[in-house]
């Protein structure tokens, strides 16, 4: 074996790779936002008085958690046009990421809401606040604080999952690197470099969450 490493194609493709990192970031952040919305909405439905709604949410969560993201994104990719919705691969990927992350977010947020003592709810009601106000003003922040560590790791996982969106050619780091790889055949060099990029991206994501946590959830507890 006298293979010599040659990073020239990687260096030449660097501007493309760096912009693709932004694409990955964009995909991840949009996915997280959608996942959060689905998560909160799901928790509200999950605690609804209507049994059917509760079961629908449970079914949704289990269906998503027990099937691979790759299969989900293919399914959504083919299902949306049949439902009359024509979207580019990138928005399609965001929807898939949001649905996938949302299922996990439902379980995490539900745990956080349950961790808040019943007394907090009652104190709010006794002060004349409405249920929605109690949830928004009293329950939400401590619940978010309680779940922030698990939400962080789930969202870092979501960030890593964006690489699978390359399967439908969404614009992000992995699909761009695949293009450079197939043009240059320097597979190892390309993927090695891109792996390092992902390491930095997930590290940045973690810092970002730590920053938010310190900024918005820093109140003393016993």
């Amino acid at each position, binding site marked *: 074996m006298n293979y010599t490493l040659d990073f020239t194609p990687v260096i030449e493709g660097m501007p493309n790779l760096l912009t693709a990192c932004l694409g990955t970031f964009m995909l991840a952040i949009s996915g997280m936002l959608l996942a959060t919305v689905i998560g909160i909405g799901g928790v509200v439905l999950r605690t609804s008085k209507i049994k059917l709604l509760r079961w629908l949410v449970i079914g949704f969560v289990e269906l998503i958690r*027990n*099937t691979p*993201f790759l299969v989900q994104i*293919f399914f959504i990719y083919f299902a949306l046009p049949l439902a009359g919705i024509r979207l580019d691969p990138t928005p399609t990927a965001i929807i898939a990421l949001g649905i996938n992350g949302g299922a996990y977010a439902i379980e995490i947020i539900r745990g956080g809401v349950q961790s808040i003592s019943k007394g907090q709810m009652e104190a709010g009601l006794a002060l004349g606040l409405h249920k929605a106000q109690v949830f928004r003003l009293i329950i939400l922040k401590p619940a978010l604080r309680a779940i922030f560590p698990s939400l962080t790791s789930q969202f870092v996982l979501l960030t890593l999952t964006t690489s699978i969106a*390359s399967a439908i050619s969404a614009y992000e780091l992995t699909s761009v690197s695949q293009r450079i790889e197939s043009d240059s055949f320097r597979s*190892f060099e390309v993927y090695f470099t891109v792996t390092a990029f992902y390491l930095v991206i997930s590290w940045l994501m973690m810092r970002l969450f730590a920053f938010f946590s310190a900024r918005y959830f820093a109140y003393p507890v016993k």
Partner: protein
Amino acid sequence: MGQDEFFFLLMGLKWTVALSAIGFVCGCVAGLGIALARTSGVPLVERITAGYIALFQGTPLLMQLFVVYYGLALVGIKVDAWAAVSVGLTLHASAYLGEIWRGAIEAVPRGQTEASKALALGYVSRMKDVVLPQALRISLPATIGFLVQLIKGTSLASIVGFTELTRAGNIISNQIFQPLTVFGIVGILYFVMCCPLTIYGAHLERKFAASVR
């Protein structure tokens, strides 16, 4: 979709099961080593294993499979796709399981280690007879949770070009142009594998929480 196509999917399913089993079993063995190294008390060893874990938890599994696949070829080891994927999944699993079990080992009360030291037990017996049995019990729900994640992760082998369940689905879908039916069935097959494990894991977790109280 006819019988032949379904049979083709089942052939893919067989490989998905095989990949999962190999990845999990080998990952358990390697992961145990990682967990022990991570809690060895030797700073350098702990630092290196922490880095190993951070590396695998901070990068996409897909990239890990790519790097292993092309990396093995690079160092002159010519292997089939399935062997490369197995190595990749094993490394991936060893890092995740190592981290899960590190947490569990640290969750065993300090008094247990102290009591075994006071009883003059050596490191091997202390770990094998006292700490690990308790740690494994604590970590069982998380371990099963990871097994589910690993089964789903094997689907990425399809992107590397190995024909397991998802790639079998791709192939059929391209033949018969019924992607929703095909991926629906593929999804159901994964669900049938994963859901019982998920339920069992949740059951263990509840049981464990109840016994702690």
